């Protein structure tokens, strides 16, 4: 007999958790090891218990299911369970195993678990979730960024971001109150932040327009941006063109 899948439920409504639990009771290869009422608890328990499978709601207090996924060190298989159908595409971009629409039937749930079992058989290991997400859907922009510093989760309004610097696999996000590291790509932020407010000025920098105090030439065909707090950032050739386009000079 196969090993049981360690499972965590992240869902803010008690009745919805109860329903899922009672459905799962009859599934023999599932063992529910924890239930979480919101994304903060979810991050903590998933990183601690390292489950194989997580049932995840999307609209929850504090942070959404998607934001929670970005904060995980351990990457389990994900089955989304939500009342909305409009997040399905995004869910599969996050490499979700399945997407259950509430209210769902026992059979539909079993089918979803079947997909997870299949994945585990085929891959053996869980693929990296966050890396798949490199571009943000067009037409809407990020209004907040969720970061984890040691054991504290911070929600930063996008408008508080001063600039972002790339650091290998991570980015450093500078705000008025400090800086935060996040595992994400520059390309993601370039498409996720409103291009009217944030400009990619260099391979390594995205800067908020309002933070720019001065653009200075320091060598022939080479520029730097000086921010209000005197921070100097390099500008590349294509970055200079981006600046010109947005600021109209």
């Amino acid at each position, binding site marked *: 007999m196969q090993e049981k899948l360690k499972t965590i439920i992240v869902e803010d409504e*008690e009745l919805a958790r109860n329903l899922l639990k009672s459905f799962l009771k009859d599934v023999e290869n599932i063992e529910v090891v924890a239930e979480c009422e*919101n994304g903060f608890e979810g991050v903590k328990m998933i990183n601690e218990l390292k489950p194989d499978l997580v049932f995840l709601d999307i609209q929850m*207090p504090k942070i959404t299911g998607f934001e929670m996924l970005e904060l995980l060190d351990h990457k389990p298989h994900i089955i989304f369970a939500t009342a909305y159908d409009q997040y399905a595409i995004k869910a599969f971009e996050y490499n979700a195993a399945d997407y259950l629409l*509430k209210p769902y039937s026992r059979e539909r749930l079993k089918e979803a678990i079947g997909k997870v079992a299949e994945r585990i058989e085929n891959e053996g290991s869980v693929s990296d979730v966050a890396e798949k997400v490199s571009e943000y859907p067009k037409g809407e922009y990020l*209004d907040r960024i969720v970061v984890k510093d040691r054991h504290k989760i911070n929600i930063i309004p996008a408008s508080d971001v001063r600039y972002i610097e790339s650091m290998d696999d991570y980015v450093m996000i500078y705000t008025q109150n400090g800086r935060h590291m996040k595992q994400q790509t520059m390309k993601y932020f370039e498409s996720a932040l409103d291009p009217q407010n944030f400009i990619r000025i260099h391979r390594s920098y995205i800067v908020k327009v309002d933070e720019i105090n001065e653009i200075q030439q320091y060598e022939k065909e080479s520029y730097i941006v000086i921010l209000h707090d005197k921070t100097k950032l390099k500008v590349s050739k294509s970055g200079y063109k981006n600046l010109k386009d947005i600021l109209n000079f």
Partner: protein
Amino acid sequence: MNFKHPFLSKPRLVIYYLLFWIATGIATVLLKWYSFNVEPGTAAVEFFALPFLFAIVGTSIWYVIKFSTLENNSVPRVILSHFIAATIIVLVWLYIGVVFIKLLHPESSVYIDNRIPINIFMGYAFYVIYVLFFYAVNYYEGFKEKLRNEGKLKGLVKEAELHALKSQINPHFLFNSLNSISSLTMADPVKAQEMVINLSNLMRYSLKHDQVEKVPFREELKNNKLYMQIEKVRFGKKLNPVFEVDEACLDVEIPNMILQPLYENAIKYGVYEATEPIDIVTRCKMKDNMLEVVIQNNYDPEALSKRGEGIGLRNIRDRLQIIYNNPLLMKVEDNKTDFKVTLAIPQKN
């Protein structure tokens, strides 16, 4: 109220008015010429100096009727103010008229001596005709304005109904409620049944209220309690609705569907975003012949949701403005931990 003179807001009226007086003038001159053998030039001066001058001075009577409307003043007061205004206007008119006659008329003194009493009488008679004419214009404009407002109100009521229906078929509410029912069918079938009935009653209420502008507060309150009950089943201890309603409020009238957006906002911005219990407190009392409804909820100040005056609040404000002609009946306060909306619904005596 609109004090603007109809001649200013509708220049076309001025042209008709002038044409009318010029035609009358030509007819008068011709008549005097043929019948009484008066020189056309003299007849024209006579017409210009007195009747036509009244046509100009008389336009100011509009402001008199606007300041002493029949709706807001007692009849003796209106008559008195018209009598005073008429005397002033007639005196001014006659004085200027006499000056013109003296300057232009070949036999001015004879003409004036014969005509003063009859012209005073004519002045008052003209005044009465003008007052009736302007009251008619005023009444007609008010009537048109009312029609316009009724149309606008119908649109807003439709919008409110549509909003209520939309929020009930919005996936967060509908499918999550159905999911709760799905859960309860196994754990607590009696409660599941209760929830199905509540959900049906709520939707029936939104569907049936077609074109009814006002409903008893009792009904509106019952409907919103139903809505809170359904959400309470979903959110459990996280949602704590409190109702403090004076008995005296229950039978007064309130525009329909006007409260639901407020509860919806309290749940959306309060309960959805919170991990701690949220109190949604409703206080209703009668105050100076007004129904005062206060709906207040605490919320998590760290929850970063954008919050402007959404379609729900705007619709309420517009409807109160049109129905009661007062933009100050809704008050919104937000002190970063509590959100509070106060409505004052005027009642008839």
